[in-house]
């Protein structure tokens, strides 16, 4: 450990998840997924506003202080976009963005229905909204089924087993004054090894190369095969462990948004909470001045070797030549987090306690965590099936069972069966999940966004994470959504908004609360 001072704890940070769902429509192929995904999103029956405020975004801007002229793309995937398959719709129309009354964003992201949770400050809120996204997208699928008379299936996973991967990205608001190198060096060993508890599990290896590619029949992570770089701005190809996209969705002088793309989509509520809770605590450490006294020799190789290690020893090589178990590397982060952050808030203490318990289980007997971790639960299921049916791990049917684990259909999904059977630890109840499909968290700007959608949705011209533009003349009339809003600020703002009846009154109210001069023509 180096010099440090106390950090605020998990409730002091804003975070969210964006999940791209796998989509299977009976009778349709991958070349039709862009349209199928668009139509699924368009089936959303609830209150929404749009279109999205794309002017606030620039995915080519790198947090290291430059902008790339293009992003890498997947040549195999690009073949689905041949000109003769082109759509008459604009890119924006294809994306079909909907901002929902719970503050979330629902849209078609490159052939995947994607649900971005509203901004959250508590792990329980995050889990509830992540699961609310499952319910919302599943409802859209059921409506599409009725419309077209064909089966529509959704999978919360990250691979199609044919080389295409899609993400579950995490977002964490971070301080801008922490140098990039400190963020990178502090996070890399953690991100590489957290698949021990955050991996969703996968049968086999898809890329054909890298460590243990021939020996591996089951690995911890869905995504590890698809990462080839340490840090870059790309997300579609040449994927990096540390994504450097610089879109803070907040005042860029004060904030960065850490965009983590190397994680798996978790079905387990516990794994989702532990993944986000531990990552938030590591960011607390780094923001307090903490720096790790070690680096991985080859982070990409380490990610794959930990994921694929059939011995469960999970060894990683440090740049000084030492070899360390990944559980022990995680424990270095844990011990320092316990020393510096314990007592910060209830989520911090829950995370510290469960992090320690999971690492102990992984050292002693990984299968003791089958009620909490996706990869363990999946592996146990597959072993049960192999034993009962007399199969071997190489049997191709196992990939279908792997896929079925992630099926959102309560009557088909294997995770759903475990949950129904009470075999999986739950963190939120159904009532809270249902409530989260309609209501935003009460302690972030999402509450204001949701209120504006609910009351003034049809009058929105553009809507995004950090501002809302209302129709009026040639240009939208913008109202800011400050990321700094906390529970008290939200409550005061909602109280004032409750008293206004028109959009101009709402605009004035929002601008006054954010300290901005009221200028209706401002962009």
């Amino acid at each position: 450990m180096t010099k440090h001072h106390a950090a605020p704890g998990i409730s002091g940070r804003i975070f969210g998840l964006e999940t791209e769902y796998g989509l299977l429509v009976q009778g349709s192929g991958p070349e039709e997924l862009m349209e199928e995904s668009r139509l699924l999103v368009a089936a959303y029956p609830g209150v929404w506003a749009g279109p999205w405020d794309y002017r606030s975004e620039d995915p080519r801007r790198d947090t290291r202080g430059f902008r790339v002229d293009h992003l890498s793309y997947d040549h195999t995937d690009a073949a689905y976009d041949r000109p003769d398959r082109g759509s008459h719709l604009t890119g924006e129309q294809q994306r079909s963005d909907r901002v929902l009354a719970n503050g979330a964003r629902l849209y078609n992201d490159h052939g995947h229905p994607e649900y971005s949770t509203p901004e959250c400050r508590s792990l329980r809120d995050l889990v509830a909204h992540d699961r609310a996204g499952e319910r919302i997208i599943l409802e859209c699928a059921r409506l599409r089924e009725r419309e077209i008379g064909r089966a529509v299936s959704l999978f919360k996973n990250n691979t199609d087993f044919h080389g295409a991967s899609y993400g579950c990205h995490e977002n964490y608001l971070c301080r801008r004054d922490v140098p990039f190198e400190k963020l990178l060096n502090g996070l890399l060993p953690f991100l590489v090894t957290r698949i021990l508890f955050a991996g969703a599990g996968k049968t086999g290896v898809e890329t054909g190369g890298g460590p243990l590619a021939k020996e591996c029949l089951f690995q911890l992570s869905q995504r590890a095969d698809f990462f080839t770089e340490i840090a870059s701005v790309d997300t579609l190809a040449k994927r990096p462990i540390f994504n450097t996209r610089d879109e803070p969705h907040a005042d860029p002088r004060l904030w960065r948004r850490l965009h983590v793309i190397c994680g798996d989509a978790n079905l387990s509520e516990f794994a989702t909470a532990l993944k986000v809770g531990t990552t938030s605590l590591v960011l607390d450490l780094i923001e307090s001045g903490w720096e790790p006294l070690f680096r991985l020799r080859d982070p990409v190789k380490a990610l794959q070797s930990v994921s694929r290690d059939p011995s469960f020893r999970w060894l990683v090589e440090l740049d000084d030549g030492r070899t360390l178990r990944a559980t022990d590397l995680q424990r270095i982060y844990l011990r320092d987090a316990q020393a510096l952050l314990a007592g910060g808030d209830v989520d911090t203490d829950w995370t510290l306690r469960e992090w320690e318990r999971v690492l102990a289980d992984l050292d002693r007997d990984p299968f003791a965590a089958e009620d909490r971790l996706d990869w363990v639960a999946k592996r146990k299921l597959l072993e049960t099936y192999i034993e009962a049916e007399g199969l071997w791990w190489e049997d191709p049917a196992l990939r279908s069972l792997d896929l079925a684990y992630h099926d959102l259909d309560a009557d088909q999904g294997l995770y759903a069966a475990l949950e129904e059977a009470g075999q999986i630890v739950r963190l939120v109840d159904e009532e809270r999940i249902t409530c989260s499909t309609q209501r935003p968290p009460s302690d972030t700007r999402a509450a204001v966004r949701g209120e504006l959608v609910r009351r003034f949705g049809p009058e929105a011209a553009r809507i995004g994470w950090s501002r809302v533009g209302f129709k009026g003349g040639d240009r939208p009339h913008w109202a800011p959504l400050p990321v700094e809003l906390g529970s008290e600020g939200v409550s005061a703002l909602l109280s004032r908004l409750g008293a206004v009846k028109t959009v101009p009154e709402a605009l004035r109210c929002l601008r006054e609360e954010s300290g901005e001069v009221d200028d209706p023509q401002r962009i």
Partner: protein
Amino acid sequence: MILKGFEIRGQERIQRPTPQEPFTRPGDGDGPKAPNVKRPDPSDLLKRMRRVDPDQARRYRQRSGE
């Protein structure tokens, strides 16, 4: 411990004591909570696994995600 297709070298592991405290305790405030976990009937899970179309993964094709 030998599983079909896997060799797990449990004896090479570092052994550490496991915390004895329960997963959640009364007074955890508003942090995440876990209900009691019941054991399922394994035959029900097997039935569902046997219903899975073994060719489903072969037909499953997706676009790469952004």
